[in-house]
């Protein structure tokens, strides 16, 4: 039984997180002494380049599921096609990246095979011959070791950034590319996806900002925002925000940093009253220096912070603004 990594592509471009899932697959393959196969899904034409690219990465084989009904993603189409593949191939483990798409269909796929799915794992190891997965609980405040209770196939998705895609190596002769048959009927696909689109154009480009002062729900009330804006002004910084702050309409959506907002990489990122949920971290962990101010010393934001201040932002922010103003 092999390890099957399901890669994600959209319109001929990979979702980069899939390489991290492949890296996790290779790592587990070594630890469990199992071959690693990689699957991708798409329409009947246009997958050749992706197949060839994947075949170069030392996988045992590439399984390319092509069907006219798989061109546009639907949870029904993807779950049905992958179920057929898994029933035939009988893998020990099915690995995916924890993308929005995987959230949408992987639980359904696993359930349709009466199997459990350990989602969003940040690590894995082998204990007594069996895989043990590390997950975060309580939005990153705790970790847990989790194991499957039933039999294989085991379904697992990996969190963004948890495995190193840059450690993947191209190996030897390219893997064989197979096109397993997929039987799908239009009537089996119950949802109809329409065009993808972006909301109104952005007027701020946080991606090019050198310094970002980001504010989270710890700010409590929009009336407190001027304090943060003053600090940003003193630093010549842009103001960024966590999602709840934008959801509440306290700051415009275009200032949101994270998986559903902008990805930023300033030289200095100051996080004020932000807990550090993974969806926020993926948007800012490329920052060179991270400062976190949070009243909770166990907030996960401190895991990525170079400098941490445990305390109330209402005390720290005015003091910091004053210090900057008087030093310049």
């Amino acid at each position, binding site marked *: 039984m092999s390890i099957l990594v399901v890669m994600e592509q959209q319109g001929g471009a990979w979702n980069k997180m899939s390489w991290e899932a492949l890296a996790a697959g290779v790592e587990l393959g070594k630890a469990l002494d199992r071959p690693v196969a990689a699957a991708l899904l798409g329409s009947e034409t246009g997958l050749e380049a992706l197949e060839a690219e994947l075949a170069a990465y030392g996988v045992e084989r590439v399984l390319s599921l092509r069907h006219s009904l798989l061109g546009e993603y639907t949870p029904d189409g993807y779950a049905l096609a992958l179920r057929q593949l898994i029933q035939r191939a009988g893998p020990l483990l099915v690995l995916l990246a924890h993308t929005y798409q995987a959230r949408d269909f992987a*639980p359904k796929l696993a359930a349709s095979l009466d199997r459990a799915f350990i989602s969003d794992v940040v690590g894995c190891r082998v204990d007594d011959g069996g895989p043990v997965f590390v997950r975060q609980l309580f939005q990153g*405040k*705790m970790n847990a070791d989790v194991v499957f209770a039933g039999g294989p196939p085991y379904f697992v998705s990996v969190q963004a950034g948890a495995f190193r895609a840059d450690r993947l190596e191209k190996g030897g002769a390219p893997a064989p590319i197979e096109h397993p048959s997929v039987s799908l009927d239009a009537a089996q696909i119950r949802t*109809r996806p329409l065009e993808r689109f972006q909301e109104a154009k952005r007027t701020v480009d946080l991606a090019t900002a050198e310094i970002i002062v980001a504010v989270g729900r710890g700010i409590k009330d929009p009336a407190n925002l001027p304090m943060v804006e003053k600090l940003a002004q003193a630093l010549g910084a842009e103001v960024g925000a966590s999602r709840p702050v934008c959801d509440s309409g306290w700051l415009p959506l275009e200032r949101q940093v994270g998986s559903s907002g902008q990805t930023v990489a300033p030289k200095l990122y100051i996080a004020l009253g932000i807990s550090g949920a993974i969806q926020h971290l993926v948007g800012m962990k490329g920052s060179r*220096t991270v400062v976190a101010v949070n009243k909770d010393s166990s907030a996960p934001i401190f895991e990525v912070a170079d*400098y941490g201040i445990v305390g109330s932002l209402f005390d720290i922010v005015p003091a910091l603004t004053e210090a900057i103003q008087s030093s310049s």
Partner: protein
Amino acid sequence: MKIIVCLKQVPARDSVLRIDDAQAWVRETDLSFEINEPDTYALEEGLRLKEKHGGEVVVVCAGPARAASAIREALAKGADRGIHIEDEALARLDSFTTARALAAAIRAESFDLVLTGLQSDDLGFSQTGVILAELLGAPHATIIMEVQKMEGGIKVKRELEAGWFQYVEMPLPALLAIQSGINKVRYATLMGIKKAKTKELKRVTPAELGVDLKPRQIIRRVYAPQKSKQTQFLEGPPKEVAAKLLEKLKFEARVL
């Protein structure tokens, strides 16, 4: 429209969490609890759809005895009745097992729409809704930011990564996993709280529903995460900390 809203009760946000003696969960005796945040948005969306199109909102919660207060809160906000699948084990069960219990209760209702939150703030699997859709044989969509009723079905706005969206259409009955921020949630009024006392809250056990709670995955150990980065913690009164930080940013990190 007959709308089912699934709720979970979780430790209140900003709780100070302590690991229990068995290192298998957190010490619940120290905690206060609230409705899982994404579920509050699912409830609000259900109430709005009912106000617009008529029908009924039924709240279903699988949880320990304490979770009855979450259902009461939902009734106070305007849900019509509640079903509490009660078992202490449901406090921290995996999504598959929880979804099986929910499905058993929901099957008995002839629903048009099932709404769940996208994920829970405690376990965070983000699976229960999607598994539930599979078990109920209904189409679904997740990370939903808008719901419109149309002739013969619904049209929903699904969030994709990095600021992209997509509309998806589907027939009813269907299931939607709602994303936080889709709407502005309401507070319960005094009147609502009074009225809630007279509303039906049915308790059932998993056994009565014919489901066993045998877990599909097991938490072996809970522990504090290890830091991947060396954080320098700066201490002292605000003025002093601010000065220290400024020094560090200028002369150590050299980013100012």
